């Protein structure tokens, strides 16, 4: 996907002024935050489960080579083919090669954020094949001229029901429906034809299970079940970090995934797909492929940001992020928005191509608190800020400012003099009512806020006075 993360400030500005989006975001926030809060109380020991989940994901990453080989061996033994994609372009090349090998004309897809990284749908269409997204959110975006997803779980949650009504009427040529149930039924009827006529199904992979060579898929619409079992060929695409050692481990993670994501105890559908359809078996594709994608992940694995790869893509960090809640996902400018996106995007597309993102957080740590695998997101954002400084990617004025501040603050006499002058200057700037309306070098502050002026003497001065008296 095209990277627009450098335009974060301008895009956020547009989103803050978009009344329709603001209304949709308000609904989203109330629903997801409240639902998760209720759902986690169902577990007797939520924090203990969270710690167990963290440990599982960390163990998988610390031994990733071993588990990947184990997965490849077991998946191959079940009749599947395991392929490796080093770059996003490799993902597209491999999918098209598989399609060519099996004379595929039409592809259906269940949700895969990894395929968004490489803009797979565009590559498929460019190759003259057709592709249909079957996740309702992704389908809505596809028929809206491939609008970008704004959330990793609910890709179209920036849209209102009314917008979807208009879109369906326009694209399907049907009477405009306003009832959600009717809209879903209309999508279902359209998609059903595609399931039946597709040659190949492409899915993501919530987990790849090393001990069994299985892929686990979590959906609410059952679209992954149809996508992976009706067509002749199934291709599951996911990042190499999605490996989980055992099915027992999956059970632990599943206790947290839907609860953290949508506040459900479990998703409506959970598919566990192991190998091709065997003799006498009724379900499953005849040909099964796994594409395990690197595309920057080994770089993260080898860095001090490894914890970010524990992510199980529940979206809780963005659901609870006050910044995301107010601007939505599009402002972030790439596949993964919110706190985890602000960590992954710079690592996957290049630090210099996403400079605002690590700073686009107040470090309030609500994301870290709700993350089911305990990714210390604020620490990772800070680490990325450090990398920007180390690589000279910050403006010289900012660096000079911090250096000067630090230099003065280590010289107490000079500091006392500086603050003495500043206290008086600020007092003067506050004027009659004691509020500053314009601050040089801090227009970002005064564009939306005033600042109450200080009383004119520093604590240091007043305290010294009080000691003399």
């Amino acid at each position, binding site marked *: 996907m095209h990277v627009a993360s450098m335009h974060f*400030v301008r895009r*956020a500005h547009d989103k*803050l002024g978009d009344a329709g989006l603001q209304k949709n975001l308000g609904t989203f926030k109330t629903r997801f935050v409240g639902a998760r809060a209720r759902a986690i109380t169902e577990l007797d020991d939520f924090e203990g489960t969270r710690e167990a989940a963290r440990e599982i994901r960390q163990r998988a990453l610390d031994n990733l080579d071993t588990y990947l080989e184990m997965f490849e061996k077991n998946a191959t033994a079940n009749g599947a083919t395991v392929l490796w994609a080093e770059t996003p372009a490799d993902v597209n090349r491999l999918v098209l090669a598989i399609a060519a090998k099996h004379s595929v004309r039409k592809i259906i897809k269940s949700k895969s954020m990894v395929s968004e990284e490489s803009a797979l749908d565009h590559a498929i269409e460019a190759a003259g094949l057709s592709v249909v997204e079957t996740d309702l959110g992704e389908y809505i975006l596809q028929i809206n001229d491939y609008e970008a997803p704004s959330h990793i779980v609910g890709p179209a949650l920036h849209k209102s029901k009314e917008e979807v009504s208009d879109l369906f009427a326009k694209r399907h040529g049907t009477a405009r429906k306003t009832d959600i149930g009717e809209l879903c039924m209309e999508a279902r009827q359209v998609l059903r034809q595609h399931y039946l006529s597709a040659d190949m199904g492409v899915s993501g992979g919530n987990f790849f299970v090393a001990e069994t060579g299985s892929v686990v898929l979590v959906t609410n619409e059952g679209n992954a079940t149809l996508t992976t079992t009706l067509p002749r060929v199934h291709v599951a695409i996911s990042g190499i970090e999605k490996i989980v050692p055992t099915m027992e481990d999956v059970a632990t993670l599943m206790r947290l995934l839907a609860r953290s994501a949508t506040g459900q105890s479990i998703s409506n559908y959970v598919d566990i797909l192991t190998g091709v359809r065997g003799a006498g078996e009724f379900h499953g594709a005849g040909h099964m492929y796994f594409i395990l994608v690197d595309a920057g992940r080994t770089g993260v694995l080898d860095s001090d940001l490894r914890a970010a790869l524990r992510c199980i893509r529940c979206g809780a960090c963005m659901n609870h992020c*006050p*910044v995301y809640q*107010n*601007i939505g996902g599009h402002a972030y400018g790439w596949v993964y928005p919110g706190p985890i996106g602000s960590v992954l995007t710079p690592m996957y597309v290049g630090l210099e191509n996403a400079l*605002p993102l*690590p*700073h*686009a*957080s*107040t*470090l*309030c*740590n*609500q994301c*870290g*608190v709700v993350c089911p695998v305990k990714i210390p997101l604020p620490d990772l954002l*800070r680490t990325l*800020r*450090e*990398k920007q*400084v180390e690589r000279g990617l*910050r403006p010289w004025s*900012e*660096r000079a400012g*911090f*250096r000067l*501040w*630090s230099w003065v*603050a*280590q010289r*107490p006499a000079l*500091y006392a003099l500086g*603050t003495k002058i*500043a*206290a008086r200057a*600020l007092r003067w700037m506050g004027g009659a009512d004691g*509020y500053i309306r314009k601050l040089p070098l*801090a*227009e*970002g*502050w005064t*564009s*939306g*806020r*005033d*600042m*109450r002026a*200080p*009383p004119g*003497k*520093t*604590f*240091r001065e*007043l*305290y*010294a006075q*009080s000691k003399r008296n």
Partner: protein
Amino acid sequence: MRVGLFVTCLVDLMRPSIGFAAIKLLEQGGCEVYVPATQTCCGQPGYNSGDRAAAKGLALKVLDEFEDCDYLVAPSGSCSGTIKTHYPDLLADEPGLADRLARLTAKTYELTDFLVSVLKLGAVPGTFQGTVTYHDSCSSLREMGVKQQPRELLAMMPGVRVAEMAECETCCGFGGTFSVKFGEISSRLADNKCRNVEESGAEVLALGDLGCMLNIEGRLHRRGNSTVRVMHVAEVLAGIERA
């Protein structure tokens, strides 16, 4: 016991009354309050902006200045949080500091936590009468575990009624340099906070961090709200507003 007061750079410059309020409360609890004259800043601005070098010298300075105290107490979750939870990372590669640092972080407290957990204060001198709502600052709440402490202290004031606002644990949008780099987003978050404060019906918004204070107060004023007073919880508890 000898308690070192880390005044914080923002209290020193912007709201000295909070420093005096903290002293009054600590003395009420029987402490000998020591205010190192050379103290300046904990280094958080540089640390959070990725400039470790700019932060390190200041961290070492705080360590030197407060080593001799029984406790380090700050009227800020954000500054005490930096010292307690981030200095070990910031100074990790400084040789021979581990023990000294462990002693410092173990004795570092946010003010209201110290008043409740260590001093076990039974009464406060403030006499304010009216409705107060409390904003939980991110670092107080999520780094320093401060939640009930300020509320317990406010409950000791017979004239005070605490009216909890919606989303009292949600960030006000300050975020240090975030508030200037992303002024528009920051103002929106502050605006949401102001709305919740106003809807609580409180006359006073009490809080425990200067960043949030300047941010919310500044936004309230820009919104034209001149009725809600924004006070540090120490000012309310000590009955000191301006010095």
